């Protein structure tokens, strides 16, 4: 199946593009997608990027809705990854 991944803020700069469509195995979870993205863009491994749920410093939305890492993806989903910022 195919999903579209959108990168926000720091991730966009690191990956060098705002979005890409990628082919992934059917029925993978958000967590598995993130593993695929780390392989695809090793630069993301240097971020605190979904090592495990309680450490992950990444927020994920699926088709415009906030999701947890165990959510299962479907063909055509649009997944957005954004780092929470904390400055004031």
């Amino acid at each position, binding site marked *: 199946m195919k999903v579209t991944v959108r990168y*926000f*803020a*720091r991730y*966009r700069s690191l990956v060098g593009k*705002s979005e890409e469509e990628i082919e992934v195995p059917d029925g993978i979870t958000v967590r598995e997608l993130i593993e695929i993205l780390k392989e695809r863009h090793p630069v993301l491994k240097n971020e*605190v990027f979904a090592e495990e749920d*309680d*450490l*992950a*410093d990444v*927020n994920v*939305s699926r088709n*415009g*809705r*906030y999701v947890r890492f165990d959510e299962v993806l479907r063909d055509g989903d649009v997944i*957005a990854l*954004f780092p*929470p*910022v*904390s*400055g*004031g």
Partner: protein
Amino acid sequence: MLSERELERYDRQIMIFGVEGQEKLKGSKVAVVGVGGLGSPVAYYLAAAGIGTILLIDEQTPELSNLNRQILHWEEDIGKNPKPLSAKWKLERFNSDIKIETFVGRLTEENIDEVLDGVDVIVDCLDNFETRFLLDDYAHRKRVPLVHGAVEGTFGQVTTVVPGITKSLREIFPNAGKKEGKFPILGATAGVVASIQVLEVIKLLTGLGEPLLNKLLIVDLAFNTFDVVELK
């Protein structure tokens, strides 16, 4: 009741939400927690809008490297006037019809109930999640709306937490908070995010439009993107 002078001063915005809306702003007390990059323009626009009482909270004194974004602090304030007092001096001269209260110090579990007593809306202009979660807990305990904003570089985020209606900051950002220290930031970025926060306050107080309830606005001003993520 608004005076003749206030009716004239706020004429252009009374066209948006009426005299009734303006009276609501006048009758409200809003806390600005953190009087830095976000807090400066937030306090400035709250004062411009005629919020009756603004409470400024910060424990720091301005430094030279703050001035690229913290526009209520000037060269003469560096190392001298704590941020709430520096800001109060200007805001009182800008709008003498409103009241500026200050708390110079850090919010803690021990003092937060006393410091924020009577506040109608809290604006989060902090630079760390540790204190944000303290505000979040207070907001839920006392049922006070909290307008969250944060910035870094050319991006920022805004959402409004209303206890009983929306998720809490802890639920939205469960793992944030480890980062500390120096971060890149441009004054204009803080200005954009701060302006959106002030609109959230005005929407909450007057009933205008739809606040960002259970919605997280994410902006990247380098790439001209404004995205709203549904949080529920």
